[in-house]
């Protein structure tokens, strides 16, 4: 399957009477966005704001970050099974608006988390500080259930991202990249000498605020399965995950999965990128066993030589990670796993909640317990009301000078386990 991905660079976002993209500037009509968001009767209001790199702005509590895209050729549309029909995507041509994102924010539960600082030390840890962010702070109607609110905000993000992506349909991309994977037989004929490599992506799937959707299906009710890696570039996997800001995968991470990009970079040169395998991280232990058994079984069936495994979230996924690693290695398939660490504030505790000698090749996204001081910023988009109620923040969080003492955990994407960042630890 082959996908052409056209990049359209967005250098600025402005709120304007009419939505359009001109000379790399995105103009957004607040009216139009409001209309889209408030279509959902569960939502009462939406406040639109723009946060640019370097500005003294803090966005919190962040729910999701989404890159607008539009499918211009080929079957299906972006976010299949969610916004578009469930047709298989990943072929044809897609445009992506680079350098920007739609950020949804809103207090879904009282301990909601996720900070994006656009400047200062915090900005170094989140990739989203480098983007022009169109932020939507979304409030629900009264007496709404949390899961309804979560769903409404999740959909509002995708709808607005799709709406903005649509503005690019008639444009000419600044750059175009091609991604192509081959069928089993084709791949063997084309690259007989190259090691066969796949990407095993673990998806958070545990309940409210901990879910991921694949073509609209709740991942916890799925068996491990195979995707063309280009499918995720069209939004086949979206985030419903609001907890563990530092190491959850936002929809932006899924769309721009760095393991997929870096495997494609080597594809046909040093390795044959065969496919992506997705597997879940359920609460029920027998599910963990089944899913990891299936993952290992597919690795064997596909005659793979190696895989990169990425994790999502904290704690019990360590068990899934080690199960996957151990079982895949036992099939004679080499693994490298990507995780992050909770080694305590002093860095001295055991980093993972599980371990096995088979996991001899580990990439880490850093210690999420590391303490960081975030200075007071001029403007807050969202609310600071709950800042002490977020993971890794404590009652000493808000200091006298207005700065915050927090753990990296609270920063959106800080220790991401798809290897999105340069942060590491030793």
């Amino acid at each position, binding site marked *: 399957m082959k996908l052409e991905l056209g990049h359209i660079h967005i250098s600025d976002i402005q709120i304007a009477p009419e939505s359009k993209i001109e000379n790399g500037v995105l103009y957004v009509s607040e009216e139009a966005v409001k209309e889209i968001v408030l279509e959902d009767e569960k939502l009462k209001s939406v406040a639109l704001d723009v946060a640019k790199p370097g500005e003294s702005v803090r966005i919190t509590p962040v729910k999701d970050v989404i890159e607008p895209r539009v499918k211009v050729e080929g079957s299906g549309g972006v976010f299949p099974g969610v916004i578009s029909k469930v047709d298989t995507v990943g072929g044809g041509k897609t445009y992506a608006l680079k350098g920007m994102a739609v950020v949804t924010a809103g207090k879904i539960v009282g301990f909601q988390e996720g900070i994006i600082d656009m400047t200062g030390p915090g900005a170094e840890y989140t990739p989203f500080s480098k983007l022009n962010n169109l932020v939507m702070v979304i409030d629900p109607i009264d007496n709404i259930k949390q899961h309804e609110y979560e769903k409404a905000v999740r959909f509002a993000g995708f709808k607005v991202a799709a709406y903005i992506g649509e503005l690019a349909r008639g444009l000419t991309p600044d750059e175009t990249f091609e991604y192509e994977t081959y069928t089993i037989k084709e791949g063997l004929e084309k690259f007989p000498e190259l090691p066969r490599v796949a990407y095993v992506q673990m998806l958070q799937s545990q309940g409210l605020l901990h879910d991921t959707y694949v073509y609209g299906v709740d991942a916890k009710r799925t068996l491990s399965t195979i995707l063309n890696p280009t499918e995720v570039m069209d939004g086949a996997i979206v985030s419903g995950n609001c907890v563990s800001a530092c190491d959850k995968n936002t929809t932006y991470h899924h769309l721009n999965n760095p*393991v997929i990009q870096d495997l494609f970079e080597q594809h046909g040169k*040093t390795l044959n990128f065969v496919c992506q395998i997705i597997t879940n991280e359920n609460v029920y232990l027998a599910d963990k066993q089944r899913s990891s058994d299936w993952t290992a079984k597919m690795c064997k069936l596909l005659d793979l030589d190696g895989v990169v495994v990425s994790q999502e979230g904290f704690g019990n996924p360590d068990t899934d990670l080690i199960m996957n690693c151990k079982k895949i290695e036992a099939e004679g398939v080499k693994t490298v796993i990507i*995780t992050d660490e909770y080694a305590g504030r002093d860095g001295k505790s055991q980093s993972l909640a599980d371990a096995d000698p088979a996991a001899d090749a580990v*990439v880490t996204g850093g210690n999420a317990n590391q303490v960081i001081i975030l200075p007071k910023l001029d403007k807050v988009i969202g609310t600071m009301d709950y800042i002490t109620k977020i993971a890794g923040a404590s009652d000493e969080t808000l200091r006298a000078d207005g700065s915050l003492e927090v753990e990296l955990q609270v920063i959106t994407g800080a220790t991401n386990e*798809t*290897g*999105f960042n*340069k942060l*590491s630890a030793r």
Partner: protein
Amino acid sequence: MSKLKVVHYINQFFANIGGEEKADYPAEIRVGEVVGPGLALTQAFGDEAEIVATIVCGDSYFNENLDKAKADILAMGKEHQPDVFVAGPAFNAGRYGVACGTIADAVQEELGIPSVTAMYKENPGADMFKQKVYIVPTKNSAAGMRAAVKVLAPLALKLAKGEAIGSSAEDGYMPNGVRVNFFEQERGSKRAVKMLLKKLAGKEFETEYAMPDFDRVAPNPAVKDITKAKVALVTSGGIVPKGNPDHIESSSASRYGEYDITGVNDLTAETYETAHGGFDPVYCNEDSDRVLPVDVLRDLEKEGKIGSLHHLFYSTTGNGTAVASSKAFAAEFSKKLLADGVDAVILTST
């Protein structure tokens, strides 16, 4: 600006006094002298620091007169109040490595002066001290001096200035179990793909997080005749006299207990209990023989099936207790067991 002050520790060999035959050379201080590897260090320090004194001590002397050597060297160090204390590099010299680790640790702990040493990773001093002092890994011989100094000197300067020490990958010391964040040159996914390619090609690769590992020891020979043997009991099940007189912690124990069971034929609910917080203590508190089988061993002693039951047992709680602490406990009471003529040990765990 005045230069930072360094006190340097080396052995008799690197001081050009002699080899093994001079290993009993007692500790001495040479004020204002730069000796052997100190020259390379001085060069690397440039204008920033200078070696104000060199302490020379024979390896055998240090290890055989540990307390005195340590006290003497500490006194010498204290007098000169350096900004940093550097020991070695010791390369693969085992006793020298242990001496470097011991003295660097003591200077740091007792004088509050930051210390650093360097040695080959398989030097026994490395495992013993890498979690206590910064140890720069070196090649296994003095041929690696230049490379060692290249890492050792900047680290020593950083310590002397009181600057924050980065991760082991940045500042070049042996991983010491403390995880420190830093920014790599490439993003994680790229590092993962590169690591996988190396692993697939059968090349060497370096994991960013090593799984916890455990030691192996060769088995001891069998006990010739158990009916003549003195058998001792040791437990990680936390059995203590009722009331836990030594206050052994229910988890992450920082100590172990030594208890006399002379004349004790049975552990009862009234006399013994468990300090262990890692399991439901009800069964054990009812009858501690369920963890520490004193009753049965007394019977076997009477029947002549074992020589005798040692009158002391050793106990700690295995729950969450650091491997390093457990090792230290065992090293200590093993010496006592040997001194008491114990032939065999039964270790019970819950």
